[in-house]
Protein backbone atom coordinates (compact mmCIF):
# COMPACT_ATOMS: atom_id res chain seq x y z
CA UNK A 1 0.00 0.00 0.00
CA UNK A 2 0.87 3.61 -0.34
CA UNK A 3 0.43 5.78 2.69
CA UNK A 4 0.83 9.52 2.86
CA UNK A 5 0.03 11.72 5.83
CA UNK A 6 0.54 15.45 5.54
CA UNK A 7 0.57 17.72 8.60
CA UNK A 8 -1.99 15.74 10.58
CA UNK A 9 -2.98 17.53 13.78
CA UNK A 10 -5.36 16.40 16.46
CA UNK A 11 -6.27 17.70 19.90
CA UNK A 12 -8.72 16.50 22.49
CA UNK A 13 -9.79 19.57 24.40
CA UNK A 14 -6.60 21.29 25.52
CA UNK A 15 -4.48 18.19 25.03
CA UNK A 16 -2.63 18.06 21.73
CA UNK A 17 -2.15 14.47 20.63
CA UNK A 18 -0.77 14.83 17.12
CA UNK A 19 1.41 17.75 15.98
CA UNK A 20 1.87 17.92 12.23
CA UNK A 21 2.46 14.25 11.60
CA UNK A 22 4.00 13.52 8.22
CA UNK A 23 4.49 10.15 6.63
CA UNK A 24 5.42 9.24 3.12
CA UNK A 25 5.57 5.54 2.44
CA UNK A 26 5.55 4.38 -1.15
CA UNK A 27 5.69 0.64 -0.84
CA UNK A 28 4.77 -0.63 2.58
CA UNK A 29 2.98 -3.84 3.52
CA UNK A 30 3.24 -3.79 7.28
CA UNK A 31 3.66 -0.58 9.22
CA UNK A 32 4.23 -0.79 12.96
CA UNK A 33 3.53 2.23 15.12
CA UNK A 34 5.52 2.20 18.33
CA UNK A 35 6.33 4.66 21.07
CA UNK A 36 5.52 5.68 24.61
CA UNK A 37 1.93 5.76 25.89
CA UNK A 38 0.21 9.00 25.04
CA UNK A 39 2.59 9.51 22.13
CA UNK A 40 -0.24 9.56 19.62
CA UNK A 41 0.12 6.16 17.93
CA UNK A 42 -3.41 4.97 18.69
CA UNK A 43 -4.87 8.29 17.57
CA UNK A 44 -2.98 8.08 14.28
CA UNK A 45 -4.30 4.55 13.74
CA UNK A 46 -7.84 5.65 14.58
CA UNK A 47 -7.56 8.47 12.04
CA UNK A 48 -6.48 5.90 9.46
CA UNK A 49 -9.45 3.73 10.45
CA UNK A 50 -11.84 6.64 9.97
CA UNK A 51 -12.89 6.57 13.61
CA UNK A 52 -11.39 9.95 14.44
CA UNK A 53 -11.27 13.12 12.38
CA UNK A 54 -8.03 15.10 12.27
CA UNK A 55 -8.29 18.80 13.13
CA UNK A 56 -6.18 19.60 10.09
CA UNK A 57 -3.94 17.87 7.57
CA UNK A 58 -4.58 15.21 4.99
CA UNK A 59 -4.31 11.47 4.68
CA UNK A 60 -3.89 9.62 1.40
CA UNK A 61 -4.30 5.88 1.14
CA UNK A 62 -3.23 4.29 -2.14
CA UNK A 63 -3.35 7.70 -3.83
CA UNK A 64 -6.87 8.36 -2.65
CA UNK A 65 -7.56 11.02 -0.08
CA UNK A 66 -9.61 9.97 2.93
CA UNK A 67 -12.42 12.50 3.16
CA UNK A 68 -13.37 13.20 6.76
CA UNK A 69 -17.09 13.70 6.26
CA UNK A 70 -19.51 11.26 7.88
CA UNK A 71 -20.89 9.92 4.61
CA UNK A 72 -17.48 9.25 3.05
CA UNK A 73 -16.08 7.97 6.33
CA UNK A 74 -18.80 5.33 6.53
CA UNK A 75 -17.67 4.00 3.14
CA UNK A 76 -14.04 4.16 4.26
CA UNK A 77 -14.69 2.31 7.53
CA UNK A 78 -16.47 -0.41 5.60
CA UNK A 79 -13.40 -0.93 3.42
CA UNK A 80 -10.92 -1.44 6.26
CA UNK A 81 -10.82 -3.98 9.08
CA UNK A 82 -10.11 -2.66 12.57
CA UNK A 83 -9.26 -4.75 15.62
CA UNK A 84 -9.12 -3.11 19.05
CA UNK A 85 -7.38 -4.06 22.25
CA UNK A 86 -10.46 -5.79 23.69
CA UNK A 87 -14.27 -5.83 23.63
CA UNK A 88 -14.41 -6.09 19.85
CA UNK A 89 -17.19 -8.65 19.88
CA UNK A 90 -20.86 -8.22 20.66
CA UNK A 91 -21.63 -10.24 23.81
CA UNK A 92 -25.21 -11.12 22.82
CA UNK A 93 -24.14 -12.83 19.59
CA UNK A 94 -22.23 -16.06 18.98
CA UNK A 95 -18.80 -16.06 17.35
CA UNK A 96 -20.42 -16.95 14.04
CA UNK A 97 -23.10 -14.26 14.31
CA UNK A 98 -20.46 -11.69 15.17
CA UNK A 99 -18.93 -12.35 11.76
CA UNK A 100 -22.14 -12.66 9.76
CA UNK A 101 -23.68 -9.45 11.16
CA UNK A 102 -21.49 -7.03 9.17
CA UNK A 103 -21.50 -9.36 6.15
CA UNK A 104 -25.29 -9.38 6.01
CA UNK A 105 -26.19 -5.91 7.21
CA UNK A 106 -23.32 -3.87 5.81
CA UNK A 107 -22.02 -5.83 2.85
CA UNK A 108 -25.36 -7.27 1.75
CA UNK A 109 -24.45 -10.95 1.67
CA UNK A 110 -27.38 -13.35 1.71
CA UNK A 111 -27.57 -15.23 5.05
CA UNK A 112 -26.37 -18.61 3.66
CA UNK A 113 -23.43 -16.94 1.86
CA UNK A 114 -22.48 -14.98 4.97
CA UNK A 115 -22.65 -18.13 7.02
CA UNK A 116 -20.45 -19.99 4.59
CA UNK A 117 -17.82 -17.26 4.53
CA UNK A 118 -17.82 -17.06 8.32
CA UNK A 119 -17.57 -20.83 8.73
CA UNK A 120 -14.65 -21.05 6.31
CA UNK A 121 -12.69 -18.36 8.13
CA UNK A 122 -13.43 -19.82 11.54
CA UNK A 123 -12.28 -23.20 10.33
CA UNK A 124 -9.06 -21.70 9.04
CA UNK A 125 -8.42 -20.16 12.45
CA UNK A 126 -9.26 -23.50 14.11
CA UNK A 127 -12.27 -21.99 15.81
CA UNK A 128 -14.96 -24.18 14.25
CA UNK A 129 -15.85 -25.95 17.47
CA UNK A 130 -16.42 -22.59 19.15
CA UNK A 131 -18.56 -21.03 16.45
CA UNK A 132 -21.80 -21.23 18.41
CA UNK A 133 -20.36 -19.89 21.65
CA UNK A 134 -20.92 -16.36 22.88
CA UNK A 135 -17.76 -14.33 23.58
CA UNK A 136 -18.09 -14.90 27.33
CA UNK A 137 -17.34 -18.59 26.78
CA UNK A 138 -14.21 -17.95 24.72
CA UNK A 139 -10.70 -17.28 26.00
CA UNK A 140 -9.17 -13.86 25.45
CA UNK A 141 -7.03 -15.18 22.62
CA UNK A 142 -9.96 -16.87 20.92
CA UNK A 143 -11.96 -13.66 21.19
CA UNK A 144 -9.23 -11.67 19.47
CA UNK A 145 -8.95 -14.32 16.77
CA UNK A 146 -12.69 -14.14 16.14
CA UNK A 147 -12.33 -10.35 15.98
CA UNK A 148 -9.57 -10.73 13.41
CA UNK A 149 -11.71 -13.24 11.50
CA UNK A 150 -14.50 -10.67 11.41
CA UNK A 151 -12.11 -8.00 10.20
CA UNK A 152 -10.78 -10.07 7.28
CA UNK A 153 -14.16 -11.58 6.34
CA UNK A 154 -15.16 -8.37 4.57
CA UNK A 155 -12.02 -8.53 2.37
CA UNK A 156 -10.63 -5.22 3.61
CA UNK A 157 -8.04 -3.28 1.63
CA UNK A 158 -6.20 -2.65 4.87
CA UNK A 159 -6.12 -4.21 8.34
CA UNK A 160 -5.64 -2.02 11.38
CA UNK A 161 -4.64 -3.41 14.77
CA UNK A 162 -4.74 -1.23 17.87
CA UNK A 163 -2.63 -3.05 20.47
CA UNK A 164 -4.40 -6.33 19.76
CA UNK A 165 -2.53 -8.28 22.43
CA UNK A 166 -2.23 -5.75 25.25
CA UNK A 167 -5.05 -7.29 27.24
CA UNK A 168 -3.81 -10.88 26.87
CA UNK A 169 -1.48 -13.11 28.83
CA UNK A 170 1.72 -14.30 27.07
CA UNK A 171 0.40 -17.63 25.82
CA UNK A 172 -2.65 -16.05 24.24
CA UNK A 173 -0.52 -13.24 22.89
CA UNK A 174 1.44 -15.82 20.94
CA UNK A 175 -1.66 -17.37 19.36
CA UNK A 176 -2.89 -13.97 18.22
CA UNK A 177 0.49 -12.82 16.91
CA UNK A 178 0.78 -16.03 14.93
CA UNK A 179 -2.47 -15.25 13.15
CA UNK A 180 -1.30 -11.72 12.36
CA UNK A 181 2.00 -13.02 11.05
CA UNK A 182 0.18 -15.48 8.85
CA UNK A 183 -1.95 -12.69 7.38
CA UNK A 184 1.22 -10.73 6.74
CA UNK A 185 2.72 -13.67 4.85
CA UNK A 186 -0.44 -13.87 2.78
CA UNK A 187 0.44 -10.41 1.59
CA UNK A 188 -2.25 -8.45 3.35
CA UNK A 189 -1.49 -4.83 4.10
CA UNK A 190 -1.61 -3.94 7.73
CA UNK A 191 -0.90 -1.21 10.25
CA UNK A 192 -0.23 -2.25 13.81
CA UNK A 193 0.12 -0.36 17.06
CA UNK A 194 2.17 -2.53 19.37
CA UNK A 195 4.43 -2.73 22.38
CA UNK A 196 5.90 -6.03 21.21
CA UNK A 197 9.20 -4.86 19.74
CA UNK A 198 10.32 -8.37 18.77
CA UNK A 199 7.12 -8.91 16.84
CA UNK A 200 7.34 -5.49 15.18
CA UNK A 201 10.87 -6.36 14.11
CA UNK A 202 9.70 -9.62 12.62
CA UNK A 203 6.74 -8.57 10.59
CA UNK A 204 7.02 -4.85 9.88
CA UNK A 205 8.77 -3.50 6.83
CA UNK A 206 8.44 0.02 8.21
CA UNK A 207 8.39 1.18 11.80
CA UNK A 208 7.35 4.65 12.91
CA UNK A 209 8.04 5.88 16.41
CA UNK A 210 5.60 8.44 17.75
CA UNK A 211 6.48 10.51 20.75
CA UNK A 212 4.92 13.72 21.98
CA UNK A 213 2.59 13.74 18.99
CA UNK A 214 5.37 13.67 16.41
CA UNK A 215 7.00 10.97 14.34
CA UNK A 216 10.53 11.06 15.65
CA UNK A 217 11.83 8.27 13.50
CA UNK A 218 10.58 6.20 10.62
CA UNK A 219 12.27 3.50 8.62
CA UNK A 220 12.86 -0.24 8.29
CA UNK A 221 13.18 -2.21 11.55
CA UNK A 222 16.90 -2.71 11.09
CA UNK A 223 17.31 1.06 11.25
CA UNK A 224 14.72 2.13 13.85
CA UNK A 225 15.22 -0.72 16.29
CA UNK A 226 18.86 -1.64 15.75
CA UNK A 227 20.54 1.63 14.75
CA UNK A 228 18.26 4.44 15.82
CA UNK A 229 19.28 7.91 14.75
CA UNK A 230 17.18 10.05 17.05
CA UNK A 231 17.76 10.44 20.77
CA UNK A 232 14.06 9.95 21.53
CA UNK A 233 14.12 6.53 19.90
CA UNK A 234 17.26 5.54 21.75
CA UNK A 235 15.80 6.63 25.08
CA UNK A 236 12.53 4.85 24.41
CA UNK A 237 14.23 1.61 23.41
CA UNK A 238 16.63 1.76 26.33
CA UNK A 239 13.70 2.14 28.68
CA UNK A 240 11.61 -0.73 27.35
CA UNK A 241 14.48 -3.11 26.76
CA UNK A 242 15.82 -2.63 30.26
CA UNK A 243 13.32 -5.09 31.77
Amino acid at each position, binding site marked *: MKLRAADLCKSFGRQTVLREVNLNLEQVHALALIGPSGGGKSTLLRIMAGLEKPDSGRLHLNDREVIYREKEL*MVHRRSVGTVFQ*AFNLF*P*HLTALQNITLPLEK*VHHYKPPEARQVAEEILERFQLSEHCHKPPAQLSGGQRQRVAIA*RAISIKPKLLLFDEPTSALDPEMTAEVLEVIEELRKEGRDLVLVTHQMGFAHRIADQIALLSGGRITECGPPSQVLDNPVSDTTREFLAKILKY
Partner: protein
Amino acid sequence: MAWQVLLLNWAFAFLLLALICFFSFSQLRYNWNWQTVGGYSGFFWRGWLNTLKISSLALVLSTLIGMVAALARRSGFLALQAVSRLYVELVRGTPLLVQISFAFYVVADALHFQDRFTVGLFTLSLFSGAFISEIIRGGIESVGTSQLESARAIGLTRFQTYRYVILPQAIRVILPALAGMFANLIKDSSLLSVISIEEFTWNAQQVSALTYSNFECYIPLAIGYLVLTLPITLWTQWLEKRTRYET
Protein backbone atom coordinates in the same frame (compact mmCIF):
# COMPACT_ATOMS: atom_id res chain seq x y z
CA MET B 1 -34.88 -27.82 42.83
CA ALA B 2 -37.29 -30.70 42.87
CA TRP B 3 -40.85 -29.67 42.15
CA GLN B 4 -42.09 -31.19 45.40
CA VAL B 5 -39.89 -28.84 47.40
CA LEU B 6 -41.01 -25.93 45.30
CA LEU B 7 -44.64 -26.85 45.86
CA LEU B 8 -44.08 -27.12 49.60
CA ASN B 9 -42.52 -23.67 49.75
CA TRP B 10 -45.39 -22.14 47.85
CA ALA B 11 -47.93 -23.96 50.00
CA PHE B 12 -46.22 -22.53 53.08
CA ALA B 13 -46.33 -18.98 51.70
CA PHE B 14 -50.03 -19.29 50.86
CA LEU B 15 -50.81 -20.78 54.24
CA LEU B 16 -49.13 -17.83 55.95
CA LEU B 17 -51.15 -15.40 53.87
CA ALA B 18 -54.39 -17.25 54.57
CA LEU B 19 -53.69 -17.21 58.32
CA ILE B 20 -53.10 -13.46 58.34
CA CYS B 21 -56.27 -12.83 56.36
CA PHE B 22 -58.33 -15.20 58.46
CA PHE B 23 -57.13 -13.66 61.71
CA SER B 24 -57.72 -10.08 60.56
CA PHE B 25 -61.20 -10.69 59.24
CA SER B 26 -62.20 -12.76 62.24
CA GLN B 27 -61.47 -9.75 64.46
CA LEU B 28 -63.57 -7.53 62.25
CA ARG B 29 -67.28 -7.41 63.07
CA TYR B 30 -68.54 -7.23 59.58
CA ASN B 31 -71.72 -8.47 58.00
CA TRP B 32 -70.78 -10.01 54.74
CA ASN B 33 -73.30 -9.33 52.08
CA TRP B 34 -72.05 -11.23 49.08
CA GLN B 35 -75.45 -11.98 47.69
CA THR B 36 -76.50 -8.38 47.12
CA VAL B 37 -73.17 -7.49 45.58
CA GLY B 38 -73.31 -10.63 43.45
CA GLY B 39 -76.40 -9.22 41.79
CA TYR B 40 -74.24 -6.44 40.38
CA SER B 41 -71.61 -8.67 38.78
CA GLY B 42 -72.33 -7.05 35.40
CA PHE B 43 -70.81 -3.80 36.72
CA PHE B 44 -67.61 -5.59 37.64
CA TRP B 45 -67.30 -7.30 34.29
CA ARG B 46 -67.93 -4.13 32.32
CA GLY B 47 -65.46 -2.21 34.45
CA TRP B 48 -62.81 -4.89 34.24
CA LEU B 49 -63.09 -5.04 30.46
CA ASN B 50 -62.82 -1.26 30.23
CA THR B 51 -59.72 -1.32 32.41
CA LEU B 52 -58.27 -4.05 30.23
CA LYS B 53 -58.98 -1.97 27.14
CA ILE B 54 -57.59 1.32 28.42
CA SER B 55 -54.55 -0.36 30.00
CA SER B 56 -53.57 -2.29 26.89
CA LEU B 57 -53.92 0.77 24.70
CA ALA B 58 -51.97 2.88 27.22
CA LEU B 59 -49.31 0.18 27.44
CA VAL B 60 -48.58 0.41 23.72
CA LEU B 61 -48.91 4.18 23.57
CA SER B 62 -46.75 4.83 26.63
CA THR B 63 -44.01 2.53 25.29
CA LEU B 64 -43.99 4.49 22.02
CA ILE B 65 -43.93 7.81 23.89
CA GLY B 66 -41.19 6.53 26.16
CA MET B 67 -39.08 5.41 23.20
CA VAL B 68 -39.48 8.74 21.39
CA ALA B 69 -38.68 10.70 24.56
CA ALA B 70 -35.60 8.56 25.26
CA LEU B 71 -34.31 8.97 21.70
CA ALA B 72 -35.05 12.71 21.79
CA ARG B 73 -33.02 12.95 24.96
CA ARG B 74 -30.10 11.25 23.23
CA SER B 75 -30.42 13.15 19.96
CA GLY B 76 -28.01 15.84 18.85
CA PHE B 77 -30.66 18.57 18.89
CA LEU B 78 -30.49 20.61 22.06
CA ALA B 79 -34.09 21.80 21.70
CA LEU B 80 -35.34 18.19 21.53
CA GLN B 81 -33.24 17.28 24.55
CA ALA B 82 -34.71 20.18 26.51
CA VAL B 83 -38.29 19.35 25.57
CA SER B 84 -37.79 15.71 26.53
CA ARG B 85 -36.12 16.63 29.82
CA LEU B 86 -38.86 19.10 30.74
CA TYR B 87 -41.58 16.58 29.94
CA VAL B 88 -39.98 13.81 31.97
CA GLU B 89 -39.22 15.94 35.03
CA LEU B 90 -42.63 17.66 35.08
CA VAL B 91 -44.59 14.45 34.69
CA ARG B 92 -42.52 12.43 37.13
CA GLY B 93 -42.59 15.17 39.73
CA THR B 94 -46.33 15.81 39.88
CA PRO B 95 -49.22 13.58 41.03
CA LEU B 96 -51.18 11.72 38.38
CA LEU B 97 -54.41 12.89 40.03
CA VAL B 98 -53.49 16.52 39.33
CA GLN B 99 -52.45 15.69 35.77
CA ILE B 100 -55.72 13.95 35.03
CA SER B 101 -57.80 16.84 36.38
CA PHE B 102 -55.67 19.39 34.58
CA ALA B 103 -55.82 17.48 31.30
CA PHE B 104 -59.57 17.04 31.41
CA TYR B 105 -60.87 20.20 33.06
CA VAL B 106 -58.36 22.66 31.60
CA VAL B 107 -56.66 21.40 28.44
CA ALA B 108 -59.46 19.29 26.95
CA ASP B 109 -62.02 21.89 27.95
CA ALA B 110 -60.08 24.64 26.20
CA LEU B 111 -59.98 22.51 23.06
CA HIS B 112 -63.69 21.70 23.40
CA PHE B 113 -62.80 18.04 23.52
CA GLN B 114 -65.22 16.03 25.62
CA ASP B 115 -64.24 12.39 25.08
CA ARG B 116 -63.23 11.29 28.56
CA PHE B 117 -61.86 7.97 27.45
CA THR B 118 -59.40 9.51 24.97
CA VAL B 119 -58.28 12.21 27.40
CA GLY B 120 -57.78 9.57 30.09
CA LEU B 121 -55.89 7.29 27.74
CA PHE B 122 -53.49 10.05 26.65
CA THR B 123 -52.92 11.36 30.17
CA LEU B 124 -52.16 7.91 31.49
CA SER B 125 -49.86 7.17 28.54
CA LEU B 126 -47.99 10.44 28.95
CA PHE B 127 -47.61 9.74 32.66
CA SER B 128 -46.20 6.24 32.19
CA GLY B 129 -44.26 7.29 29.11
CA ALA B 130 -42.10 9.61 31.22
CA PHE B 131 -41.06 6.76 33.50
CA ILE B 132 -40.60 4.38 30.60
CA SER B 133 -38.38 6.89 28.77
CA GLU B 134 -36.05 6.96 31.77
CA ILE B 135 -36.05 3.16 31.92
CA ILE B 136 -35.19 2.93 28.22
CA ARG B 137 -32.54 5.64 28.46
CA GLY B 138 -30.94 3.81 31.38
CA GLY B 139 -30.94 0.60 29.36
CA ILE B 140 -29.38 2.24 26.32
CA GLU B 141 -26.71 3.92 28.42
CA SER B 142 -25.85 0.62 30.10
CA VAL B 143 -24.39 -0.56 26.79
CA GLY B 144 -20.68 0.27 26.87
CA THR B 145 -18.98 2.76 24.58
CA SER B 146 -16.68 -0.01 23.32
CA GLN B 147 -19.76 -1.62 21.77
CA LEU B 148 -20.64 1.57 19.93
CA GLU B 149 -17.04 1.83 18.79
CA SER B 150 -17.10 -1.72 17.39
CA ALA B 151 -20.39 -1.05 15.65
CA ARG B 152 -18.93 2.09 14.08
CA ALA B 153 -15.76 0.28 13.03
CA ILE B 154 -17.66 -2.42 11.13
CA GLY B 155 -19.68 0.27 9.39
CA LEU B 156 -23.14 -0.09 10.88
CA THR B 157 -25.41 2.92 10.43
CA ARG B 158 -26.89 4.69 13.45
CA PHE B 159 -30.17 2.88 13.01
CA GLN B 160 -28.47 -0.51 12.56
CA THR B 161 -26.40 0.12 15.67
CA TYR B 162 -29.57 0.63 17.69
CA ARG B 163 -31.34 -2.30 16.06
CA TYR B 164 -28.58 -4.94 16.18
CA VAL B 165 -26.23 -3.85 18.95
CA ILE B 166 -27.79 -1.51 21.50
CA LEU B 167 -31.38 -2.72 21.82
CA PRO B 168 -30.67 -6.47 22.14
CA GLN B 169 -28.28 -5.67 24.98
CA ALA B 170 -30.35 -2.90 26.56
CA ILE B 171 -33.49 -5.03 26.65
CA ARG B 172 -32.03 -7.18 29.43
CA VAL B 173 -31.73 -4.15 31.66
CA ILE B 174 -35.01 -2.63 30.51
CA LEU B 175 -37.35 -5.61 30.84
CA PRO B 176 -37.57 -6.11 34.62
CA ALA B 177 -38.08 -2.40 35.24
CA LEU B 178 -40.58 -2.22 32.41
CA ALA B 179 -42.65 -5.05 33.89
CA GLY B 180 -42.92 -3.18 37.17
CA MET B 181 -43.91 -0.08 35.25
CA PHE B 182 -46.61 -1.90 33.28
CA ALA B 183 -48.11 -3.32 36.46
CA ASN B 184 -48.12 0.19 37.91
CA LEU B 185 -49.80 1.53 34.79
CA ILE B 186 -52.66 -0.92 35.16
CA LYS B 187 -53.19 0.04 38.77
CA ASP B 188 -52.75 3.75 38.04
CA SER B 189 -55.59 3.54 35.55
CA SER B 190 -57.89 3.33 38.60
CA LEU B 191 -57.29 7.06 39.14
CA LEU B 192 -59.15 7.75 35.91
CA SER B 193 -62.32 7.17 37.93
CA VAL B 194 -62.00 10.79 39.12
CA ILE B 195 -63.06 12.04 35.71
CA SER B 196 -65.80 9.40 35.65
CA ILE B 197 -64.28 7.06 33.13
CA GLU B 198 -66.24 3.88 33.70
CA GLU B 199 -63.33 1.59 34.41
CA PHE B 200 -62.99 -1.14 37.04
CA THR B 201 -62.55 1.02 40.14
CA TRP B 202 -65.31 3.43 39.16
CA ASN B 203 -67.73 0.53 38.74
CA ALA B 204 -66.71 -1.05 42.03
CA GLN B 205 -67.31 2.28 43.73
CA GLN B 206 -70.77 2.47 42.16
CA VAL B 207 -71.67 -0.99 43.44
CA SER B 208 -70.28 -0.10 46.83
CA ALA B 209 -72.47 3.01 46.99
CA LEU B 210 -75.57 1.21 45.73
CA THR B 211 -75.29 -1.74 48.13
CA TYR B 212 -73.70 -0.06 51.19
CA SER B 213 -70.95 -2.63 51.12
CA ASN B 214 -67.18 -2.28 51.20
CA PHE B 215 -65.04 -5.40 51.15
CA GLU B 216 -67.45 -7.33 48.97
CA CYS B 217 -66.47 -4.78 46.30
CA TYR B 218 -62.82 -4.28 47.14
CA ILE B 219 -61.84 -7.94 47.24
CA PRO B 220 -63.07 -8.67 43.71
CA LEU B 221 -61.42 -5.38 42.70
CA ALA B 222 -58.04 -6.54 44.05
CA ILE B 223 -58.37 -9.94 42.40
CA GLY B 224 -59.38 -8.33 39.11
CA TYR B 225 -56.22 -6.19 39.05
CA LEU B 226 -54.05 -9.14 40.06
CA VAL B 227 -55.39 -11.15 37.15
CA LEU B 228 -54.11 -8.38 34.87
CA THR B 229 -50.75 -7.69 36.49
CA LEU B 230 -49.63 -11.24 37.24
CA PRO B 231 -49.40 -12.44 33.62
CA ILE B 232 -47.22 -9.41 32.80
CA THR B 233 -44.78 -10.31 35.54
CA LEU B 234 -44.64 -13.94 34.45
CA TRP B 235 -44.28 -12.99 30.79
CA THR B 236 -41.30 -10.71 31.54
CA GLN B 237 -39.65 -13.37 33.64
CA TRP B 238 -39.88 -15.71 30.70
CA LEU B 239 -38.53 -13.06 28.33
CA GLU B 240 -35.68 -12.29 30.71
CA LYS B 241 -34.68 -15.92 30.71
CA ARG B 242 -34.83 -16.03 26.94
CA THR B 243 -32.68 -12.92 26.42
CA ARG B 244 -30.11 -13.90 29.01
CA TYR B 245 -26.49 -14.36 27.98
CA GLU B 246 -23.25 -14.33 29.88
CA THR B 247 -21.07 -11.27 29.99
